Structure formats: C-alpha cells, structure tokens
C-alpha cells in the first residue's frame, strides 16, 4: 500500500497541472482576502468591521475556495489515467484495483489538505500584518479563526475525494470537470430556488461545504458547521464507494 501511495503521489507531483492548481487556489484565496479587507468600511459595504469575529472568520473562509481546485485535482487524478491510458500500466502492476483507488483517494485527500494548508497560511500571512497595521486584533482562538481554517481544510480534502469519485463515474476528463463546475455554480443554486426541492438544498455537497466554511450563500438556512461536516463526509464516502465499486467492476480502457 505504501508503494501505491508513493506512486500516486509521484503522479500528482510530476505533472504541471498539480502545481498549477495549487497556484490557482492560492491566487483565488489571496484575492478573496485582499478584496474583503480592502473593501471593509468602504461606502456601501454592509460587512461588519474588521474587529468583528464574523468578519474575521469570513475573511479566513477565502482559503476555503480552494475546494474548487481540489475537486478538480481529484477528477484529474483518475481521468488523466484513462485519457492517456496510464491506467493500463497502473492496473497491470497492481491488478487489485480496489487498492489503487484507495491509494488515489488517500493521495487526493492529502493533496487537498496541502492545498488547504497553503491557502490558510497565505491567508494568515496577508491578514496578520495588515490587521496589525490597522491596529485590529485577530482573535485566532477567541474569534474562532483557527477553527474556521480547520473547517476549510476539511472541506477542501473531502472535495478532493469527491473529485476522485466523480472522475471514476465520468471518465471523460473535460466532461467531468465542466460537469462539476456547472453543478456547483448553476445546478445547486437552482435547487435552492425551486420551491418543492429547495428543502433538500442544505444537504447538497456545495451547501454542506458552505455550512462549514461559512461562505456566503445568500440568506438560506444552512446547517451548522458540524452538521454540514457530517453531510459532506457522507457525500465523500458515497463518491469514494462509487469509485471503488465501478473501478473493480468495469473493464480498464
């Protein structure tokens, strides 16, 4: 199993895309932090002052946007194998396919955690000096800022796992990536406004993730962070099991 984990780890780190996605995640996080701090107090901005715990947590939640990149990395981790037929040597060397998928899920989660740590570190590195210059104290513990970062990490890691599952279901790389983004940005918000099914909205992956990171999703009734975490964990498990079963049952291209 260690061998497979090393192999999967090398697969991520030896292609540019793995690093490109990390840069993308960092850029998006930085943008979110800078925009929120810079615009705070500006005319027409309804956000509470920087000293408010909710504002501090909201700024930290910018790191959580890395889940968009971690889900794509999860997808890429598996679909790239089918796209370039590296699935063949992979499953020739380890015909016990379940182990390969478990290794991929673990590596995806680890990559997600690394993305999350990097984004949180960048967020903190921008926040700390800026707040100090503005003479505002950051309540790392008291305001729940660190806890919020842990939540971000969880969301990012679980979405990487979800990505692997999606990649197994939809083996076409482009279709899987576009499908997930369309789902998160179009379909899921649509569900939230359609009368009959909108009650299900808080239990969808994106909304559950938002419940943890505290990212703004309008004035919808969310689950609290722990409930959101459990729901998202359920989705992660569901996609992991789907990926595992399908990989074992289907022929390798």
């Amino acid at each position, binding site marked *: 199993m260690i061998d497979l984990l090393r*192999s999967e780890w090398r*697969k991520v780190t030896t292609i540019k895309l793995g690093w490109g996605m990390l840069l993308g995640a960092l850029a998006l996080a930085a943008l979110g932090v800078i925009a929120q701090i810079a615009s705070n107090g500006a005319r027409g901005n309804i956000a509470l002052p920087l000293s408010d715990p909710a504002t501090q947590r909201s700024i930290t939640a910018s790191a959580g946007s890395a889940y968009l990149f971690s889900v794509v990395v999860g997808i890429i981790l598996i679909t790239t194998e089918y796209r370039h037929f*590296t699935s063949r040597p992979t499953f020739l060397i380890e015909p016990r396919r379940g182990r390969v998928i478990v290794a991929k899920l673990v590596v995806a989660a680890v990559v997600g955690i690394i993305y999350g740590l990097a984004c949180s570190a960048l967020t903190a590195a921008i926040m700390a000096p800026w707040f100090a210059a503005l003479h505002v104290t950051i309540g790392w513990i008291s305001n729940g800022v660190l806890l919020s970062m842990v939540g971000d990490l969880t969301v990012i890691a679980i979405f990487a796992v979800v990505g692997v599952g999606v990649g197994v279901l939809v083996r076409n790389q482009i279709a899987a990536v576009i499908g997930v983004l369309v789902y998160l940005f179009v379909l899921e918000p649509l569900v939230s406004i359609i009368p009959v099914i909108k009650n299900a909205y808080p239990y969808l992956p994106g909304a559950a993730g938002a419940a943890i990171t505290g990212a703004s999703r309008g004035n919808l009734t969310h689950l609290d962070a722990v409930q959101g975490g459990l729901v998202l964990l359920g989705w992660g498990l569901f996609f992991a099991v789907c990926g595992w079963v399908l990989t074992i049952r289907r*022929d390798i291209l």
Partner: protein
Amino acid sequence: MNSEAPRIEGRIVAAGLTKVFGQIKAVDDLSFSVEPGSVTGFLGPNGAGKTTTLRMILGLAAPTSGTGTISGVTYAHLPAPGRMVGAVLEATSFHPGRSARNHLRVFCAAAGLPDRRADEVLELVGLTQAARYAVHGFSLGMRQRLGLATALLGNPRVLLLDEPANGLDPEGIAWLRGLLRHFADVDGRTVLISSHVLSEVEQTVDRVVIIARGRLIYEGRLADLEGASAGVVVRTPNPDQLSAAVASLNVKITPRADGSLAVVGATPEAVGRAAWQAHVELHELRAGSSTLEETFLRLTAEPSNPPGPSA
C-alpha cells in the same frame, strides 16, 4: 486442448476466450498457448481482436466467457504481476507532460522497485539522452522504446507487446528483434508480440497465432504455415458454378488479384475432380505457391465482404 495443459511457469494459455461488446463478438471462443523460450507472433488484421485478447489475458477486461492464464493462474492471482509480466498495449500509455524518467519512476514506486531501475531500463532501450524530456516531444519510435522500458521495469519472465515494431525505423526493428530473440533464446522468457503485418515480425518469431474476426485461424510454427495453406489456384469463367461444385469439400475460396481463385483446404486433384464431375469449365488448375504474406492475407481475409471498419 489447453485447459488440461500442465501449469508451466511462464506459459500463456487462452482457453475459450470470448468477449462480447453489445452485439459484436470481438473475440470468439479463442484458444491458444504461448510457450516459454519462444517468440510468438500474435497476428491478425486491425480489428481482429488482438488487443482485446491481450487485455483479457492481462486482467484489464473481463472475458464474457473463457479464461486467460499466465503460469497457470489468472493475471489477478499472480503473486507479483509487476515482476512476472511486462506488457505494452499500444505505445500511448504516457502522460504527455511527464518526463520519461518520471514516468518510469511512477511505476517503479508502484512495483516496489528501486528508482535506479528506471535509469537501467532507459539505458537498455537507448533513451538515456531523452530521460528528462517530457514525452509529448517523443517520436512514435521513442514512445515504443519507452513503452518497452516500462514493460521491462520488473525484469519480467513474460512479455506481451502489442504492435511493438510500429513506428520503429529499420534499425530499430533490427534492434528489437535482437533483444526479443535474446530474451527468448538466452533467458528462456516468454515473448508474445502482436502485429497486423506478418512481414514485420516474420524474421523474429518462431511460432504464430493468427486470428481474424476474433477467431483462431492458425496456431503453430511459422515454418509449417506456408506449405499447409498454399492452396489451389483455379481459373474458370464460371466461378459461381465452381463454388457450388467444391462446396462439399469444405474449402475456402477467395478471388485473387489476377482474376483467378484461390481454393484453400483441398488438393488440386480433389478440386479438379469436383469441377469435372460438375462439368465446370477450367482454364487453369495448379498448386498455389504464394508468399507468406499472401498466405496471411488470404487466411485472414473477410469471407465475402471487403475488410470492415477496424476497431
């Protein structure tokens, strides 16, 4: 005959392998064996089911029925498949952005091999100079070499190579021939190479397994192939009548380029007698003397229609 065969180390056995994709029988009750210490050519036109057969033997595709075994067990039950079997299914199994060396190191890790093994196989296939370059810049010949290097990582006893000569220059083909002969003759390894062109592997292989439309056409020594199926050349103004006359002989009739017919499966005497009894006019009747390639093409030709779309 293969199902009761003894479990010889390194022997590949296909027993009644069948693969159905929807309505299409890609591989149809295919049985053959490949012996250690020999280079066997796995031949057939494009779309004959060669790659599908290899995928079943390698455990990548589940047979609809039948079994494929190596050393007497299915691929999934091999104790250390990465070290027992090396296989290349078409020279496309690379991430284009990954360097040759990193590609090999990914699989060194998976197989539990030391990283220096990557450099050893690169040296063996003559890619040391290109080790640090991304694969997208590689020529087809270089990809073939890298595919072979991947297959050789675990120093396997059994090699299955799909169209390994494709894209190699004459020098490369000669090099490959020497390498594969060495594996079989000196090391006693099992080597199975597929090709859709007999002449490409003619000088490399001892035995051939020829398939067409998913079925076994011929299995045996290459040397026996020519005599066994040279056939009878017949020229007649009434080909339909001749076909009817020889139908009872259980032969295969294919038109030749010069307008005559090749009748395979009967002697000139038998064909002549059948034609005479049915009062079919013959202008020519002789034992065929075809080249190996002609024999191959005739054996694998579609029964009545021109070759269909390849898969």
